[in-house]
């Protein structure tokens, strides 16, 4: 197995994994999307809300706000000592109070007061609601850990995807150097070098096969390598992307250990 990181920028990471099966990489992708836990607002107590948005819509908007999640600090409230009731060990409380004065007041996610400075909205500029004079909201919300399996608001990523790596197979004996393939490529990654057609950026290839179709002499073949993958993960800012990938693999380990233990007790 070989891993190489191509790009790490903002909330994005791209890497190549070589020497694994499609099943493994797909399990990893699914784990990242559905089982890596993050914090999200789950319960809302509305003390007052006379704005134009209904309580339910307001609560839904609040739930979708991504929150920064310190790794390993909080666990699921079902596994907590409080047995899912909610306590400071598994819940974070936010309070928000805002009233429009003379003009229009915009309620931002930065107006929340969090009980834990490590768990805050990823951006302070998220517009929650606009208030006009005489409108006022006062709410108390509880955030807890959850997984994307239960609700998409707990998903730590927007993009978690992989594609096969491309192998460019060029037959110089069949090629007539008509350069139709170069024109056909939508990504413009083919180039003529002397008497050969070469691919200058194999990672950008989308495996669309347009070059092979454009060639009347079958000089080009695009092969998919199903042991080598380009994996892209784009986080939301809750957890850094490299940590998301690591946590996903750890979840897979935990699951296998659990099954192994169960098998041991069953066979005994």
């Amino acid at each position: 197995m070989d891993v190489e990181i191509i790009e790490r920028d903002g909330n994005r990471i791209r890497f190549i994994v070589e020497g694994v099966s499609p099943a493994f990489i797909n399990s990893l992708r699914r784990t990242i999307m559905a089982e890596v836990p993050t914090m999200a607002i789950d319960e809302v107590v509305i003390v007052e809300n006379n704005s134009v948005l209904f309580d339910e819509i307001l609560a839904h908007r609040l739930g979708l706000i991504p929150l920064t999640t310190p790794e390993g600090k909080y666990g699921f409230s079902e596994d907590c000592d409080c047995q899912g009731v909610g306590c400071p060990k598994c819940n974070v409380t936010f309070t928000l109070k805002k009233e429009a004065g003379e003009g229009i007041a915009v309620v931002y996610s930065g107006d929340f007061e969090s009980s834990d400075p490590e768990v805050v909205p990823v951006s302070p500029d998220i517009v929650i609601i606009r208030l006009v004079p005489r409108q006022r909201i006062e709410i108390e919300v509880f955030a807890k850990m959850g997984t994307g399996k239960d609700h998409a608001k707990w998903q730590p990523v927007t993009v978690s995807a992989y594609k096969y790596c491309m192998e460019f197979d060029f037959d110089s004996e069949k090629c007539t150097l008509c350069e139709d393939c170069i024109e056909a490529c939508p990504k413009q990654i083919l180039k003529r070098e002397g008497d050969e057609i070469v691919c200058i950026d194999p990672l950008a290839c989308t495996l669309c096969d347009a070059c092979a179709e454009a060639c009347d002499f079958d000089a080009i073949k695009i092969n998919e390598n199903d042991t080598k993958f380009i994996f892209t993960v784009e986080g939301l800012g809750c957890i850094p992307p490299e940590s998301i990938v690591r946590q996903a693999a750890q979840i897979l380990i935990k699951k296998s250990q659990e099954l192994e233990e169960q098998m041991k007790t069953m066979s005994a």
Partner: protein
Amino acid sequence: MEIPIRCFTCGNLIADKFEEFAKRVKKGEDPGKILDDLGLKRYCCRTMIITHIEIIGEISRF
């Protein structure tokens, strides 16, 4: 009404970007360039911002 918190398609956060977008479009900048600046690469998120009409100011009087 109000700008949605996340992109309907991919789940990316967009509610913190609309105000800046609207402000800069009013100044006469090229909308496509602003979206690039804001880091919205996919067309799903871009559509969310471009097609949004803010009417909450009109209805909040009632």
